[in-house]
């Protein structure tokens, strides 16, 4: 009895507080990201990507005006992320919960999406199990096993490497990338001759690089979180005198982002990475995207930006399909078998797992016109997340 009474009382309270119904119907979209703290730059890029899409496609979809409410978790803080999601649902009455930087925050938000039945397009959070946490999640970013697995297979079949050593940061994304690369590499006939995990918090890499060098493998697979570590790792390889011709360095795209290459300098030349996006991808759609992005924000887009851009595309198309209806069942049904041409290339949402299916590009760092860029040397099309694919069998 008591909770029902409280329910009624608070409803009255809420009505007093809520503003009178606006003239034109709106779709309220809550954006939960890490605007401040360690991952602030990633959030800035993702926000720029989605703002660009809205600017290019006007902020009205299927007769409804889009209204954005931005909330900051201040870094990795699942309890804050969950509370913000609950407040967006309860207080701001949002229709869609989007954004979602970093796996722990995304997992916390998934519970709210499931309980409150809100459509949840994920623009970054890369943990493989995220889509299974709520039936209303559709992901447009990536999963680490997607690129690590593709790279593992390519390294043996096309790269010609027989022995590899893996070095990853000792936290869950690192473990996922390591296991998937090792599985794919062995399945393709390669041999893992050693592996090490270094502490997540700003380690100094020279000791680990020295260990790897002493084993002198043909290839070393590395995974580090974005930010300062890729450059430090690249320099450590260069300082330790790891000869890029003899020992090839393989890694996920985060290792050779534009910033990482700038501070790495020539130490980055020859690094081979597998990733789903780079601002140098040679397609008319990408060139237009990069040009518009540079004009609007004065810097090049990265995989966070394209995550935001495609996330908005998914929301726009889903709303068009449901004619502006915002209930989660309709939106997820519309989103789950969508396929479209994105600046990153052809991509689609896997109907069963609601996870992203996309092309993974194999790239090598080369100096082109005095600038270090990731030159695409191969690509693997229609790559699904291998972990969930295996779970299906």
């Amino acid at each position: 009895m008591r909770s029902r009474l409280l329910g009624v009382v608070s409803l009255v309270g809420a009505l007093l507080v809520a503003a009178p119904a606006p003239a034109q119907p709106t779709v309220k979209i809550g954006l939960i990201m890490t605007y401040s703290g360690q991952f602030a730059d990633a959030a800035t890029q993702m926000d720029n990507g989605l703002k660009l899409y809205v600017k290019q496609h006007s902020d009205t979809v299927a007769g409804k005006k889009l209204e954005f409410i931005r909330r900051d978790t201040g870094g990795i803080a699942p309890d804050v992320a969950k509370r913000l999601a609950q407040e967006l649902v309860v207080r701001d009455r949002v229709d869609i919960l989007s954004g979602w930087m970093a796996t722990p925050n995304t997992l916390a938000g998934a519970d709210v999406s499931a309980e409150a039945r809100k459509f949840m397009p994920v623009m970054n959070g890369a943990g493989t199990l995220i889509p299974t946490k709520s039936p209303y999640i559709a992901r447009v970013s990536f999963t680490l096993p997607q690129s690590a697995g593709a790279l593992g297979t390519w390294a043996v079949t096309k790269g010609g490497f027989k022995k590899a050593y893996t070095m990853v940061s000792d936290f869950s994304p690192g473990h996922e990338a390591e296991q998937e690369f090792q599985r794919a590499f062995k399945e393709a006939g390669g041999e893992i001759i050693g592996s090490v995990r270094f502490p997540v918090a700003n380690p100094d890499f020279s000791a680990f690089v020295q260990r790897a060098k002493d084993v002198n493998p043909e290839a070393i697979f590395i995974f580090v979180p974005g930010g300062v570590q890729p450059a430090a790792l690249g320099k450590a390889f260069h300082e330790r005198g790891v000869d890029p011709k003899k020992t090839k360095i393989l890694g996920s795209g985060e290792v050779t982002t534009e910033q990482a290459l700038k501070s790495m300098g020539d130490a980055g030349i020859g690094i081979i990475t597998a990733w789903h996006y780079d601002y140098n991808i040679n397609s008319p759609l990408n060139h237009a995207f990069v040009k518009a992005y540079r004009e609007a924000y004065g810097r090049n887009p990265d995989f966070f930006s394209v995550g935001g851009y495609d996330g908005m595309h998914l929301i726009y198309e889903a709303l068009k399909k449901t004619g502006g209806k915002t209930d989660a069942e309709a939106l997820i049904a519309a989103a789950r078998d969508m396929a479209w041409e994105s600046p990153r290339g052809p991509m689609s949402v896997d109907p069963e797992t609601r996870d992203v299916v996309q092309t993974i590009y194999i790239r090598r760092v080369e100096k082109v016109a005095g600038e270090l860029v990731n030159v695409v040397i191969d690509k693997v099309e229609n790559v699904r997340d291998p972990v969930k694919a295996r779970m299906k069998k």
Partner: protein
Amino acid sequence: MARVALRAVSGPHGYLQAQSRWRWPEVAFWIATPLPFLIFPTYLQLASQIAITALFAVSLDLILGYAGIVSLGHAAFFGLGAYAAGLLSKFWWGEPLSGLALAAALAGLVGYAASFVIARFRHLALIMITLGIGLLLAEAANSASWLTGGADGLQGVRIRPLFDRFPFDLWGRTAYTYSLVVLFLTFLVARRLIHSPFGLSLRGIRENAVRMPALGAPSRAYIRKVYTIAAVMAGLAGALLAQTTSTVSLEVLSFQRSADVLVILILGGAGRLYGGILGAIIYMVARDQFSGINPQYWYFWIGLLLIAVVMFLPNGLLGGLTRLASWWRAHLLVMPPS
């Protein structure tokens, strides 16, 4: 509570009675705590997390404000409580109250063990050792990712509804009621402790650690006892967060959380028991509002707030309020005939 400098109006017993009697501002505050149900019905989740942080700050105040132990690693016990409650609900059964008790007991146990080290050091060495313990525990939780889920946080936390009737829902009604009741009961214990002979001995240790042995007091034993009690309370707060949000991540053990609760306590005013509560309310509401207004640079305004409080209200907000109250009492109230 304002230090009551009553002239010899009512003899020694009256004086001591007055010290520990409930003053009307205190009663008014606790009566007002259920108000968010009416006037801020959509802020109950935030209110619940403020109550949890207040409980955490009160536990720090016991050792910092009353026994003079500055800890930069108090989140160790908060995190222990959170992980214990989370793991209990995952592997055993998710009944909240028993989970809360067990989690607090575990935190208390570890606190008791750590207290033997804590009691032997003082000043900067003590602060750095508490920092070390906190960082070691955080590192352990990350490397034991098979148990704790590592950086992704603990998955599979299933908290059953309170008394099997009140689920921890989106609205946060159960969460706020639950956190508030636990805060109030723990606060009563802390308040009773402060006004007990043991509380007096703690204040003695803080005021003059050299004199205490000369009175026959085993200071180290008292520091160990209060550190264990504080660890239990911090474990309670951690368990509450895990149960009301069913999320537990490495962040509950982080240096950031230890630093935040220290800032909150100093902001409110250490050594006044309500300092932690007031500090938690002001800090978290300010952070929520500022980060709502401009998500990217809200740190700037929180920083200014801290600087302003230190420069203009030396011993915290509560210190300022007490001075204001005593100024107001001295000027406006007619003094009782002494």
